[in-house]
């Protein structure tokens, strides 16, 4: 790490060390004084209180002034650290992160997009953060960076992965039922490997069903193996007898292509019984050809042929 340029990790950890260090000293000092007084002046050893002044100006001035200097120094040091978090190196790679219920999508300048954040190791990366629906927060503990995804504005973080590897990435701002599964990774690759990945299959619409499901965040809530998540599983969806609530009326329908398409574009039109009505509409979010691919895939062999699951 020593031969690498500056990282956000060092900027923040230095401040942690400074504040925790002083805080620990103060806590030990206060506690030790308290314990010593309690032991020394316990009524058993010290049956009568001894007079001592009940205020002393110089002492009180000192113990107001010293904490003032301490907190001012902490403030200053911390602000210096924060400035490094917002000072993006000019050569940073630009990526955009979109938060949505309940997955992340990362897109690169050349049109490549992914549900994991691939980055070249050692190089600064600037992630612009947007949200499609509610607040989210992009948080990478290993790099000490976090910023909310706020509908209507674009925020950012920058970081530099110090070593090749996989780092956890969380959503840190509560966003609803699957907040805690809005988890993915940062994959730091050697520069050459990263470039190869970036150039591979740039055209997103070339992607097949499974890739589209994950890119649009469907698998955040729907499983492919029959297990129950926030929404009904895709396994055995096509042709399933489904109890739904349409316009407040209960009815049973057989899932066909039309139903699947409607469920993607107007999820509130037919609400499947037993699941929370939380799915966002994808109207205008998915290009028509991709929508067709998705519907075809959901109604095709590998998913529909399986035994009817929950």
């Amino acid at each position: 790490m020593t031969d690498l340029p500056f990282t956000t990790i060092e900027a923040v950890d230095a401040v942690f060390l400074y504040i925790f260090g002083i805080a620990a000293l103060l806590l030990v000092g206060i506690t030790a004084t308290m314990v010593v007084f309690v032991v020394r002046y316990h009524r058993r050893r010290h049956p009568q209180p001894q007079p001592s002044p009940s205020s002393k100006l110089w002492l009180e001035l000192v113990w107001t002034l010293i904490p003032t200097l301490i907190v001012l120094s902490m403030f200053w040091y911390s602000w210096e650290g924060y400035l490094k978090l917002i000072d993006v190196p000019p050569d940073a790679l630009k990526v955009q992160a979109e938060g949505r219920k309940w997955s992340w999508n990362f897109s690169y300048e050349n049109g490549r997009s992914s549900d994991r954040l691939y980055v070249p190791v050692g190089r600064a990366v600037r992630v612009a953060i947007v949200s499609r629906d509610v607040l989210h927060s992009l948080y990478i503990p290993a790099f000490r960076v976090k910023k909310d995804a706020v509908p209507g504005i674009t925020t950012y973080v920058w970081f530099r992965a110090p070593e090749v590897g996989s780092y956890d990435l969380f959503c840190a701002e509560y966003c609803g039922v699957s907040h805690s599964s809005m988890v993915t990774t940062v994959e730091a690759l050697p520069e050459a490997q990263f470039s190869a990945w970036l150039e591979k299959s740039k055209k997103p619409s070339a992607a097949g069903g499974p890739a589209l499901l994950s890119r649009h965040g469907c698998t955040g809530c729907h499983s492919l193996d029959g297990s129950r998540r926030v929404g009904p599983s895709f396994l055995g969806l096509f042709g399933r007898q489904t109890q739904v609530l349409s316009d407040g009326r209960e009815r049973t329908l057989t899932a066909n292509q039309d139903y699947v398409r409607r469920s993607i574009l107007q999820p509130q039109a037919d609400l499947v019984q037993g699941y929370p009505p939380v799915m966002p509409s994808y109207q205008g979010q998915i290009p028509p050809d991709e929508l067709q691919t998705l519907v075809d895939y959901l109604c095709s062999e590998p998913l529909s042929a399986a035994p009817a699951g929950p």
Partner: protein
Amino acid sequence: MAKQNDRGFLQASDRQPLLFDWIFSVDHKRIGLLYLYSVGAFFLAGVALGVLLRLELIAPGPTIATAQTYNALFTLHGVVMIFLFIIPGIPGAFGNLMLPLQIGARDVAFPRLNLLSWWLYILGAFMALTSLFSGGGPPDTGWTFYVPFSSETPTNVSLALLAVFIIGFSSILTGVNFVTTIHRLRAPGMHWGRLPLFVWSLYATAWVQILATPVLGITMVLLMVERLIGLGLFDPGRGGDPILYQHLFWIYSHPAVYIMILPAMGVVSEIIPVFARKPTFGYKAIAASSVAIAAAGSLVWGHHMFVSGMSDTAILVFSLLTFLVAIPSAVKVFNWVATLYRGSISLEPPMLFALAFVFLFSIGGLTGLILGSAATDVHVHDTHFVVGHFHYVMFGGTGFAFFAALHYWLPKVFGRMYNMKAATIAWAIIFVGFNLLYFPMMLVGLHGMPRRYYDYLPQFQQLNVIATAGSWVLAAGLLLMFVNLYRGMRRGAAAGSNPWQAATLEWVLTSPPPAESFSQPPQVTHGPYDLQQAGKP
């Protein structure tokens, strides 16, 4: 006649008091007890919810509940603990019970308003409970109700908002009552320099209640309108701004932290001198710092928003102000410790809880420095570090002060003493359980576990298991403490009018105090901590 007088205000006439004699009483002591029972019940409910939350977190993946249930549980836990326990807790219960006694007044300035504020509180609580079983089901927004999620979720958020709005009014009325009482009803000789520090703290708190709570009311109404007719104030698609909501919310909710902690500091400032047999060191500094905290604390709300997308200039200003507001709290801690110097200290239960307060509050305050610092807050914001930190302040601080107040003042209120040994054991169990519960939570947050997480990655499990075990120890200690207090107040030995040899005015009266606390205003002749004068007005 003499027999009935033994029970003082608890039985003012010669017949057994009925429920109606309590819930429509305008006697500040009865209203205080109504508050005490209600906040106590909500505290126990909140603890049960907290223990369930911890149980779910003992292992990754589903354990005892679904994700939606977990989200509803932490929302309910937060709302109950904040709005039904900790904000009304010490002022509502011990403020009402003790404030008029401590300044030698007959009652508070507006006794009927006082009853109204309890009723509003109960009405709000009832509505909050109704929101669980009606409409779209239990709210799932967290106690902070952040938009846009809270304006979209189909759960019954609107009713919960209305509940919070009404409870806010209850809090404002208590504030108005206390400020007026302290200004107008002090007994002759009770000048400002002789006010007990608990009264000073209630005074500062009351101003925050009056000035800050209306902002909460406005915020809740705006959010309700947003939900009901789609006003769009917080919707960026229509010129609104979700960050505006956060400003409005914290303009109240940060000062609310001082509504929670100042009365607790007041309790501790009462107890330490009595059990150290020394006048408080730096009475003026403690009184002044209460007011300073209340004033400066209204300018630091932005420290909850360092990663919200707010401007860097705002971060600079709020970080600086936050660090400055730490100073008066530090001064108080030094004063409490200095009061022990050359005293004659006895470690009876109220003192044990008060000393534990100083320790736990120090941890809460010092970890708060990490959150006030912009660079480090970015890493720990919205993680379990924050959850651990605010439990240290609110539970380790205010919660422990509440327990200290129970052990200090209940013998006055009921005229009976609890079992000291059981109380001491309960204290030790609670203290150990508390640290076992919340210290690991701070550590797991430092390692990066976000808060409000139903599920987590395997590397976080070990610390979560320890925290959950801690919650059981803590719950056991609380159970022992409450059972012991309950038995003591029913059947304990007579406590006498001044069991701790304290010098404030409430100890001049018999225990329980008579229905007419001071029929003649006493002539006050000494300061609140002139311990040689204990027992004289």
